């Protein structure tokens, strides 16, 4: 029913209702419970994913600042960070896919640029470089600083996403 559903903070209530309609027909479950269960599951999963990405960003920041302060050398730092580039990409893409599949367009378009940027960064590594973090180049042309900035921005962004998912998850659970 149009009137009873609360207006979603994420978008017009119209969109949400369309989704609920299809879920109802597809699963054959009760109209509200099935949809909100899916929502809750989706948001719980993305919350967990987002947590992992936050920890990963923090790990990147700590390792890069260790390099800045001479606690580790360039080779050790870069091999540590290169190991986590693909997991980070996978986590970000997973989050994006989740949002796409559950058709939450706002969060999808929120996740898409970062996922695209991660993929672009990975693909654009020159053949002669040892990964996204190259120990011979990291001290040149301010790369250390730019990687640090990137990690900080991602941290802030993931925190923002975390709270958005948290709110949506709570919303989904309440309405369950």
């Amino acid at each position, binding site marked *: 029913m149009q009137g009873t559903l609360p207006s979603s903070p994420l978008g017009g209530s119209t969109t949400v209702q369309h989704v609920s309609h299809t879920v109802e027909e597809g699963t054959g479950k009760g109209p509200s419970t099935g949809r909100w269960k899916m929502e809750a599951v989706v948001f719980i999963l993305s919350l967990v994913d987002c947590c992992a990405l936050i920890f990963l960003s923090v790990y990147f920041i700590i390792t890069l600042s260790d390099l800045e302060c001479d606690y580790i050398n360039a080779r050790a730092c870069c091999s540590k960070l290169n190991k986590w580039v693909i997991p980070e990409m996978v986590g970000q893409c997973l989050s994006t896919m989740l949002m796409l599949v559950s058709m939450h367009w706002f969060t999808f378009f929120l996740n898409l640029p970062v996922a695209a940027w991660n993929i672009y960064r990975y693909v654009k590594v020159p053949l002669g470089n040892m990964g996204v973090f190259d120990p011979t180049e990291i001290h*040149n042309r301010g790369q250390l600083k730019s990687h640090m900035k990137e990690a900080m921005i991602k941290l802030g962004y993931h925190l923002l996403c975390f709270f958005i998912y948290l709110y949506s998850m709570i919303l989904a659970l309440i309405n369950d």
Partner: protein
Amino acid sequence: GGHYPSLPLGYQNAAPPLTQTLVPVPLSQPLGGPGPAQLSPSLAAMSLQSSTPEALRVVNLLQERNLLPPIPIPPPTPCLQQDLQKINCNPEVFRSTLTSIPQTQSLLNKAKMPLGLLLHPFKDLSQLPVVTSSTIVRCRSCRTYINPFVSFLDQRRWKCNLCYRVNDVPEEFMYNPVSRSYGEPHKRPEVQNATIEFIAPSEYMLRPPQPAVYLFHSSTCVFCQSLLDNIKLPGDSRTKIGFVTFDSTIHFYNLQEGLSQPQMLIVSDIDDIFLPTPDSLLVNLNECKELVQDLLKSLPTLFQKTMETQSALGSALQAAYKLLLPTGGRMSVFQTQLPNLGVGALQSREDPNQRASAKDVQHLSPATDFYKKLALDCSGQQVAVDLFLLSSQYCDLASLGCISRYSAGSVYYYPSYHHQHNPAQVECFQRDLKRYLTRKIGFEAVMRIRCSKGMSIHTFHGNFFVRSTDLLSLPNVNPDAGFAVQMSIEENLDDMQIVSFQAALLYTSSKGERRIRVHTLCLPVVNSLSDIFAGADVQAITGLLACMAVDRSATASLSDARDAMTNAAIDSLASYRQSVLSIQQPGLLAPACLRLFPLFILALLKQKAFRTGTSTRLDDRLFAMCQLKYQPLVYSMLMIHPALYRVDDLSDEGALNINERTVPQPRVLQLSVEKLSREAAFLMDAGTVMYLWVGRSCQPAFLTQVLGVSSYAAVPDNLHLLPELDTAESQRTRAFIGWLRDQRPFFPPLHVIRWVSFLGFIRSNMIEDRTESALSYYEFLLHLQQQISK
């Protein structure tokens, strides 16, 4: 007791060197020799602002044609107080692009010139003070070594000139062993010399100093004779030597003492390398000298029999690395073809049809990270890899060069090496190899470059690995390597009148002694654009721009790099025009200190490394790029803008008298065809090679008395040695060429060329002339003027 040098209060408006560009400074200038500032004491009171110093004299480049000074350009002298400048570091060792440092980053950005340092820290020096001291005095917080530019607050405390921390003078430092006096720490040699070497105590060793270990790794036998002749490699009684040869399999040589002849062990499993015997592959050179000599004599016969065309370089390098792993040392790799087997196999990426492409050049960056990874592994174990490439085919120097670039090795390239058909290259190789085997060497070295508070280094150029911030890892350090760094100004240098830079190189000498060589440079801080322009060092700026352009070609593209170089000239001259020039005149105006800047930029654009439109082999291009980054500035400049002299009319006028030999000093000529003539002979000195051109109508006197031939037609094609005739002209010519060669540690071969073959060189070497793919100097100036007026 006496007084102590107080904090430097604002440098006096010191005499701007009026004779800056005209005072000849011979390259063998003693350390911290008197600069031109001392020659005009009466001008000491003049301020920079009131009269225009020579460096800022306005030059209209479009009108004045003859800009090249007749003698090689000396480096500019920083505008410091005389007593500071007298002890300042030798510019051949430590040089800045701007001898007056801007006060703020925004001021530097306005000047549009790069700020950087060019170093040659391990240069062979004729005078080097060496200090053995139980305590090496260093700042407590920033660990700077005590240097001539610190200030003593009283007898017991000194203030660091890099971080401004006050430190205590240790008791032992109060005694001066040189003058046997007590209580005058400022007279100690560490505080009187900007370049000094310490013998390092045991705190500076991570492990006992390593012996000299040399491994020769080859798929050919070209080095054998030279090594036999120079078997006394630098080292002491612990020196070790080893050999590895390879083709599609890897061959080790058991040289154990007691064997009657060397034993060859072949490992054919190149995918899983193992060392066939645990020791006796690297043996003590003194104990097993006969076996080593036997091996060197028999290697050429071994190689003659093989018809192999496969090269498993990657696996062989891994095997050699395993061999050198425990001790560190130097690996010399001689390679004659593209490695095509096993790990690290490379493809032939060059398209011969694209050599003369006017558009972008591809494949300037490595194809694989195998050699880079191996170089980093080597660097971690103090192994340096030097690469000798003797091949006429494409060898992917972009990828192979990485093995030397990050392990502090050097690359040598002989593209047309053939033992029968090209004796000039063979001689060049033999001489280079002799220098390589006998020159001074330092092992397991690290270098740290420190700057005054407020400045920081953001990019490094040269063959080394930057292990952590400002710490360069150099498994081997040799006297022919140059380095460059770029700096930025993080905090405004408001209260400082001078800033200092210190390069400290900690190394193990070939005799197993741990030593620290420290160089300190001091420069004034200025806050006006005109002062910055007055202190610009055009050669250092060109050298640094060349390094930056090489980086840009690899990371972005060659056309980007070319545009960036042209923009450097446009931006700096535009900035001069807008901010410094008081009277706007038409034409292309430049300060006198930068008048050669457009010429040098054009020379870079026409250099083999960056030129487009002229057929250039990819490996040749890459080697030129390697050289621009690796060579010290003075040789890079000769490579970029060779010196041209007329040699058929040498006279004793103005000649130097060195070692009872009269060395004529002909004028340096512009690189333009209009300076050449068929009735003369010219010598072009390009640093690593020299050309002697003989004009078609050259005076017969020159032909007979210097070349020893009766006529022009009789000049042989491959002449590379001047006959030692008894005539005055022959003596003068040979004295001049010998003097040029003596100034550099390597031996540039001489090619005597007749007019007929001459035309091929015009395009590449006469920088000021137009070619079908590049502008002439005048057209380039017009292009700059057009861009500046936009």
